[in-house]
């Protein structure tokens, strides 16, 4: 491919069952000087793509096709090939567009397609390759910056670019690492595909090794270099480990926070905790959520959050903690976040340990699980006893979900599983992107399960499997895995979960959005929040009631420390928490997420802005992680009325959460009834 003539010669694959439209599209694309391949069957399209991953730069697909749903194709492509996908449809309905975005589409065009619009689609390719600035800077991209920028605006993805900056940074880093070898050959604007380096797939085994190494070193002493040495895996670079570690930390954080939240919630809500757990584990968001609300929530989880902002990581740590959390688990958490809280987490984790075993039992289809496993195993065992900690439960669930198939068997919170799923979904989408490189989830990686994340090629996860935990993992994995899950899967998977309400789905979508945005779990949290908040809100109201009962059983036991409600200890949080708790049960991670979000909103004292704030970011959808972080931050903010910027608030948030945890229990009880309130205010 001519490097400097990009976007000339960009290879596009067009898929549309309507021959008229296809012909038209083809001619328009040819006019743009692209190299076009057309097919009217999605299956054929997949074949073509699989034949040679480097054969195409971009895929344009119609939404309504007889042999396969356009969204499903979108997810699969995003997951497997990490290519930018543009959706095409005659349907301009917002929901449809939303669905496209959450599934990871780079763009959504309406028919009739205009020439001008097609002329700009190359920006999506560039954007995806953004992490490799060198390519962009090369000739031919002289005006890349402008175009890119322009494109981005057009795409409405400015959030992405501006949002999870760190995520992108991470992505870039990762990409760079991966592309190191290719850089030399890369001419600048060469085919992006040529530039791509084989992504490092964090398989279950690899992840296990990683976790073992981390545990051996101690979470706060675990530095990439040493982990790398301990793991002793070839072709694994320090950077790979570093980014993976980051994600892991977020995951742990998330887990712990979820656990605490759940514990809190559980305490407050009684059985409600269960739902909460998933949330917590979900990506820490849940935890956060719990925390926020209750404020009393066991901080430990929160602590984890703080640390790495790796929400996803949090989850894992949480799960770890659960496992047996044996202090190591907790410690990890603490390490991740703040040593202070770890203790709390540990407590929780221990409970989780029981569940952890469960997870192990689960047929772990996804690699993600791997990660999770390491974490989750411990967690799962803990989770096994749902009663134990709602948190544990969640975690276990998540882990289970990861395991795949766990989907319904998940512990207690069947819903949780679903939730995870949803979350996964969202995450997946994000992850997929992320997976691609931890880019925006756009690729709609099916989060379906965190396991998906692990799975390197987007092995079709069973959606079901992705229970909440998966979500967590997924988020985590997503980031890591780039393979991430087929988003496509998630949507359905999500639904499958315990009859989640469609709303939940919506939440998940929201979540997805946030997550999908591209950043790995960690960031997406934040972004998800935005979306989740919205979605959640709705769901929360709905679901909570019903699901809570469901989950109650699971949660009663643990007052989820996850509950860390960094959110302002003020009432609003409670309400939210209450609601959230309720919702949690129901909606799985998604709800949790939302709840958290809501929480956050609430915490802010009804400063919904935060959520909104995130929303745009969410739109950016780049980072799952971002979301998480954002979430955390939000919480922090909430407490202190901090500003929406994530960074500093996190610590504040953490402390707030810790404080809240203590009071949380009290709050929870009181607020449960408030759900109506918090949600409403939040967004």
């Amino acid at each position: 491919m001519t490097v400097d003539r990009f976007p000339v010669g960009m290879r596009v694959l067009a898929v549309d069952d309507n021959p008229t439209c296809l012909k038209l599209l083809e001619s328009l694309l040819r006019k743009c000087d692209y190299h076009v391949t057309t097919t009217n069957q999605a299956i054929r399209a997949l074949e073509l793509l699989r034949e040679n991953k480097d054969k195409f730069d971009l895929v344009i697909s119609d939404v309504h096709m007889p042999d396969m749903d356009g969204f499903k194709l979108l997810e699969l492509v995003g997951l497997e090939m990490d290519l930018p996908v543009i959706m095409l449809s005659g349907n301009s309905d917002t929901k449809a567009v939303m669905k496209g975005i959450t599934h990871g589409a780079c763009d959504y065009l309406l028919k009739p397609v205009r020439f001008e619009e097609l002329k700009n689609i190359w920006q999506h390719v560039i954007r995806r390759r953004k992490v490799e600035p060198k390519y962009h800077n090369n000739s031919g991209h002289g005006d890349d910056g402008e175009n890119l920028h322009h494109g981005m605006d057009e795409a409405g993805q400015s959030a992405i670019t501006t949002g999870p900056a760190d995520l992108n940074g991470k992505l870039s880093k990762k990409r760079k690492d991966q592309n190191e070898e290719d850089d030399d050959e890369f001419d600048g604007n060469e085919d992006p595909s040529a530039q791509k380096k084989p992504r490092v797939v964090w398989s279950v085994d690899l992840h296990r090794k990683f976790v073992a190494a981390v545990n051996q070193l101690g979470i706060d002493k675990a530095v990439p270099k040493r982990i790398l040495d301990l793991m002793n895996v070839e072709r694994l670079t320090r950077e790979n480990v570093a980014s993976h570690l980051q994600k892991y930390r977020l995951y742990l954080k998330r887990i712990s926070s979820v656990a605490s939240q759940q514990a809190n919630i559980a305490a407050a809500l009684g059985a409600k905790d269960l739902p909460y757990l998933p949330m917590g584990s979900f990506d820490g968001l849940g935890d956060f959520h719990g925390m926020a609300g209750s404020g009393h929530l066991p901080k430990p989880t929160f602590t984890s959050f703080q640390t790495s902002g790796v929400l996803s990581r949090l989850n894992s740590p949480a799960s770890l903690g659960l496992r047996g959390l044996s202090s190591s688990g907790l410690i990890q958490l603490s390490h991740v976040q703040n040593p202070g809280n770890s203790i709390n987490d540990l407590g929780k984790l221990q409970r989780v340990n029981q569940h952890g075993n469960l997870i192990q039992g689960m047929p772990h289809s996804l690699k993600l699980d791997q990660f999770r496993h390491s974490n989750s195993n411990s967690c799962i065992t803990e989770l096994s006893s749902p009663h134990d900690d709602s948190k544990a439960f969640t975690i276990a669930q998540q882990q289970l979900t990861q395991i795949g198939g766990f989907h319904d068997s998940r512990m207690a919170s069947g819903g949780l599983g679903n939730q995870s799923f949803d979350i996964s979904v969202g995450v997946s989408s994000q992850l997929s992107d992320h997976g691609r490189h931890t880019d925006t989830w756009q690729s709609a990686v099916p989060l379906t399960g965190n396991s998906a994340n692990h799975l390197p090629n987007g092995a079709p996860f069973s959606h079901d499997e992705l229970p909440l935990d998966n979500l967590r993992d997924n988020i985590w994995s997503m980031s890591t895995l780039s393979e991430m899950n087929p988003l496509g899967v998630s949507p359905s998977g999500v639904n499958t979960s315990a009859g989640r309400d469609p709303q939940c789905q919506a939440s998940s979508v929201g979540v997805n959005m946030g997550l999908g945005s591209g950043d790995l779990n960690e960031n997406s949290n934040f972004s998800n929040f935005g979306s989740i908040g919205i979605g959640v809100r709705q769901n929360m109201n709905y679901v909570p009631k019903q699901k809570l009962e469901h989950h109650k059983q699971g949660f009663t036991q643990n007052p989820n420390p996850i509950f860390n409600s960094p959110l302002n200890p003020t009432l609003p949080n409670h309400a939210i928490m209450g609601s959230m708790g309720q919702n949690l049960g129901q909606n799985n991670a998604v709800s949790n997420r939302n709840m958290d979000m809501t929480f956050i909103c609430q915490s802010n004292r009804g400063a919904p802005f935060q959520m909104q704030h995130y929303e745009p970011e969410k739109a950016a959808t780049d980072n799952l992680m971002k979301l998480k972080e954002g979430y955390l931050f939000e919480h922090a903010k909430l407490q202190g009325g901090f500003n929406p910027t994530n960074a500093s608030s996190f610590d504040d948030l953490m402390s707030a959460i810790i404080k809240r945890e203590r009071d949380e229990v009290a709050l929870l009880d009181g607020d449960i009834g408030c759900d109506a309130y918090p949600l409403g205010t939040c967004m």
Partner: protein
Amino acid sequence: MENTPLQRQAAYMRKCLFEQDDENPNFAEEVVTLFYKDSSKALVNTEQELEKRPLDFSMMDAYMHKFKGSTVSIGALRLKNEISLFREYCKMSNEEGCIRTFEMVKKEHAALRKKLETYFQLLRQAGPVETATRPKSDPKSSGDK
């Protein structure tokens, strides 16, 4: 065919299709032909569905959705509106409305086809005359319609 709706429609179509004419002057015509082939099938299918009882609205809606997509792609606005109307009735599962609007769709579809045919004929006639390079000039007067 000076009637305004058609002109508007044709103009729109031109915008979408005819810009591609540089490479293939017949492109527009090709697309339209393809469109008609495809849409006729859809219409026939839909008609069959309409005759069945009970009416399978979702099936008809699916056909129409596809039909609408291509209609919009070629820029046939009026036709698209008719189709949208039909789909509305479909969604409401209003049998009467469906039958009624379907007739309208068919009518508009046929009318458009006629107009397009005329248009293309005219284009063909005018084309050769306009191209200076073309040695053979079309005997028919081009400005007929």
